[in-house]
């Protein structure tokens, strides 16, 4: 057997993105143009793998480090993926997400200009609010998903690690009169779980006053941080942007709380899957439209009606007529996990789709998956077969999420 598979580059490199035929060459490779000012480049030139400001702490805590989209990140700590997953659902878990791209946008009418690239209502996003969204391409596919915050005198944007080198030039080229600054000197730490408010609030009382999808600037241990009440686990929690020289000190202070443990990429993936949240490169990519990806909720009414974003024609057509395929939750009846790429068949034996994310859901206590099925299929309760290693395994279409989202609204 090859027991390292799940913990090696194969699984966690940008290959997830490559496999889906994105127009990105070798994700994770150092792109001299896009990253010439990258100050995180403090690593061996031989591997060209980047490290976040928390790297030393991960190693000290026993993190099992893997290559993820060109970053050396912890896939798990000694607690293990299941333990870390449950920690997040029951108490609080801390994730290093510094590999994601933090970007500041300054200029006149930034929100309106972003609407030319995204189907979200960013022009009307109020100060102190954050909103999930995505860049669409001319064909109505998804270029990347992101979070945009209105920070008052600027906009703060967080994009996927593997797509920084696509998104930054995209914004520079298309946001006329907007200064696009990629931040290289701040860590980004996510504290997620029902006890996240206690963990973060103990050091930063202002965090308690935030509601879901609100953002503010506040001091933590005397250092100015950006604190946003959001995340990607389905739980209440925060993402905190911290100056790199204080990142370890503040992270240690969070971890000193009895209810907070570090968690890695493995738990992050199973948490977001149970929460029914899409992973770029698996569930959404340049070919999938937001309507197909069941992301209609993330496009505001005015934008759906007005259009005016790349690929609006396809999105509006699919909203009116229904998409050719649709992302749904799929629950295998048995214990065998259905992984990415597994074929979905209707009971008559015809292929109706494919799994895009599949794993074991520790909170569900069994396998969980998401995948696309063609029009005419995909109603919750529909029985299907999953072709796992050549054998048909019974499964059922289910409503997402698998685990109730637990946001503080």
């Amino acid at each position: 057997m090859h027991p390292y598979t799940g913990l090696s580059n194969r699984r966690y490199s940008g290959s997830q993105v490559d496999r889906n035929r994105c127009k990105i060459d070798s994700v994770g490779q150092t792109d001299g143009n896009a990253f010439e000012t990258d100050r995180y480049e403090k690593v061996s030139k031989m591997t060209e793998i980047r490290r976040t400001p928390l790297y030393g702490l991960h190693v000290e805590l026993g993190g099992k480090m893997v290559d993820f989209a060109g970053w050396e990140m912890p896939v798990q700590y000694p607690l293990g993926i299941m333990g870390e997953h449950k920690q997040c659902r029951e108490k609080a878990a801390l994730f290093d997400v510094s590999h994601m791209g933090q970007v500041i946008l300054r200029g006149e009418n930034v929100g309106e200009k972003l609407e030319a690239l995204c189907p979200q209502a960013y022009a009307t996003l109020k100060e102190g609010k954050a909103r999930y969204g995505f860049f669409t391409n001319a064909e109505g596919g998804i270029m990347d998903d992101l979070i945009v915050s209105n920070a008052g005198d600027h906009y703060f944007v967080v994009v996927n690690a593997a797509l920084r080198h696509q998104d930054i030039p995209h914004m520079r080229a298309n946001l006329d009169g907007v200064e696009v600054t990629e931040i290289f000197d701040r860590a980004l730490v996510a504290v997620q779980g029902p006890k996240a408010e206690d963990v973060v609030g103990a050091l930063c009382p202002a965090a308690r006053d935030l509601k879901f999808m609100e953002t503010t600037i506040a001091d933590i241990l005397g250092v100015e941080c950006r604190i946003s009440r959001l995340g990607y686990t389905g739980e209440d929690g925060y993402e905190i942007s911290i100056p790199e020289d204080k990142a370890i000190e503040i992270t240690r202070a969070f971890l000193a709380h009895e209810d907070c443990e570090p968690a890695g990429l493995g738990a992050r993936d199973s948490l977001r899957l149970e929460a029914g949240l899409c992973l770029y490169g698996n569930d959404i990519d340049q070919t999938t439209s937001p309507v197909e990806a069941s992301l209609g909720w993330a496009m505001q009414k005015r934008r759906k009606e007005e259009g005016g974003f790349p690929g609006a024609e396809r999105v509006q057509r699919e909203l009116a007529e229904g998409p050719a395929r649709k992302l749904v939750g799929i629950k295998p009846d048995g214990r065998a996990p259905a992984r990415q790429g597994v074929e979905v068949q209707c009971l008559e034996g015809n292929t109706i789709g494919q799994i895009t994310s599949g794993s074991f859901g520790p909170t569900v206590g069994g396998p969980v998956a998401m995948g696309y099925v063609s029009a005419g299929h995909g109603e919750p309760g529909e029985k299907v077969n999953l072709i796992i290693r050549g054998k048909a395994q019974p499964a059922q279409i289910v409503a997402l999420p698998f685990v109730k989202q637990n946001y503080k609204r």
Partner: protein
Amino acid sequence: MATYYSEEHEWLAVDGDTATLGITKHAAEQLGEVVFVEQQEVGDEFEKDGEIGVIESVKAASELYAPVDGEITEVNEALADNPGALNDDPEGEAWIYKIKIADAAQLEDLMDEAGYKAFIG
């Protein structure tokens, strides 16, 4: 009775022309928490390096490869309901198959415990 080890991280406890087969503690540690084991059936014959099962952790599926030619004579059914046993006691209670070895000469290609320890470093 002697125990042999393969480069694919299986152990094989040989007693005459029969043997018990499982995965090593090292493999179990690397896999992480095992959530599913797919086993073949009694009577199934296999060739050395052929796939004889799949072990899935939270994150990924790993194939189990036959260290020698042979036939399955017994399946550890307990693993279906309790795959986590592979993390708790992979070299004991969580054996995977009992097999009949077809060609004992193939054992010479496997490692002894000291050799395996050196192999995994």
